[in-house]
């Protein structure tokens, strides 16, 4: 199992990560070795085995849909890197 440069670039793009050339090569090698090691899972016949999504299911009914107060806007904006007119400021996202 060996990942190609193109695969690494594709994954980094999906994950929205800028990687340096050196990082790309290092991750290509390391992820290839890790995935190699993980090939052993294919030894097991799991045709009839259902997946486990969560170890313990809480079995709780959804709570009633009631209106409640949320945190004050000023507190939520207090961690934002850029704020304008009480909102998160970002560059234009549409041309």
């Amino acid at each position: 199992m060996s990942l190609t440069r193109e695969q690494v670039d594709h994954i980094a793009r999906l994950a929205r990560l800028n990687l340096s050339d050196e990082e790309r090569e290092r991750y290509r090698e390391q992820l290839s070795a890790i995935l190699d090691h993980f090939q052993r899972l294919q030894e097991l016949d799991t045709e009839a085995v259902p997946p486990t999504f969560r170890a313990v299911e809480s079995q709780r009914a959804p709570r009633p849909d009631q209106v409640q107060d949320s945190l004050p806007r000023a507190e939520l904006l207090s961690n934002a890197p850029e704020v304008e007119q009480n909102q998160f400021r970002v560059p234009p996202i549409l041309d």
Partner: protein
Amino acid sequence: MSDLTSLNLHRAIQGLRQGEFSCRELIQAYLERIQLLDLDLNAYLFTDPEGALKQAEAADQRLAEWRKFPQTELPPLLGIPLAVKDILCVKGMPCTCGSKILEGFVPPYHATAVERLLAAGAIILGKTNTDEFAMGSSTENSAYGVTRNPWNRERVPGGSSGGSAAAVAARLAPVALGTDTGGSVRQPASFCGVSGLKPTYGRVSRYGLVAYGSSLDVVGVFGREMQEIALIYELMAGVDPRDATTVDLPVPHIDLNQNIELSNLRIGVPKEYFLPGMQPQVEQAIREAIRHLQALGAQVEEISLPHTEYALPVYYLIAPAEASANLARYDGIRYGPRLSAATMWDIFYRTRGEKFGAEVKRRIMLGTYALSAGYYDAYYGKAQKVRTLIKQDFERAFQTVDVIAAPIAPTTAFPIGEHTDDPLAMYLEDVFTLPANLAGVPGLAFPVGFDQQGLPIGMQLMGSYFQEELLFRIAHAYQLTTDWHLRTP
């Protein structure tokens, strides 16, 4: 007055109530010890001396009033200091998760586990170091420097909750909160010679816990003695409307002073947890601890958890896959630093590329790949099916035994830097802790010896779902008749 930081939790509670010392003196003793030792250990990323002393004064006032009317109820932890892993939100204290991408972030609310302990009267001393977003087994992945093992400064404390484990070991806090996604409470407890609980999945609310692997994450606790851990666990546990994965079962009061009878107890020892490559003294100490439980009356039998060897690939596919989704929220828009760029997409790429550390990026890449079109069935889907087999191993075992006793890690604390260039070797440190997380069962770590270099060795007891109390009882019986847990570095 002898050193107040050497008192156990119950002695400290008693001393405060009887007026042997003030809460201010108790908090001051911890703050002074932190100042003395933590420059070197780096267990804490943040401390709040003024806030803690202010709360101590309020606690002292409350205690003074209570002494006039001692028949009234006091909050169970009134005036008791606590350290919190820097991945749980404490309102008003920075929460970095050991990452540059959350530098400067101050949560506007408390995690439920924290809120419940504050309501019980606890005083938070500060936030403890962690591998970035809890991804690691050594705290070397913290963006704010490694924590040093109090038993040997050249060794790691384990991870990811290494700061909390080191803080309890060095008596920089009597008890501390951690989290355990793949062993992050039990392994550092073992490396630092303290006790630590990973509760059943769904037993303690994760509201306000920064998510890593959501099908695995649990909030746990470190201490020395079982009574300490049981008390904190009992106060944190239980259903929470703000975490839909919490299970709605009553949380009974745990009284460990009752007679402890091990003679009807069946302990299973899984043969897959004793590998040829493991450190011989670790195996010896575990076998000796099991013999000790046998001498206390327990019946011991060898069992098999046949899919144990697959836990590593299953975990390192599922946890990174979940992490790749959970960590998508760090984009430089709503919190944390932002690297400027002309377009929003470039803000994402630059901020995430520069502010995430190497291991976090590696796991995001691995998880993104495992979930990507064309690979989902072979990796993520396959891992979830094998997870079922691992869970069934435990269910089958608990039909014949009450608890499982096993090593926590193949070695004692390894030297700082030993595995940093080889991620797979680091992942292999987790082989014995991952299965309990995948199955969701509780695990309790406690010290059972030392190797020839004086480094602590821990053992874990794993129980069936919601059997925490049984684990406490057995470990308590062990601790009443041994003194490993009382040794300090």
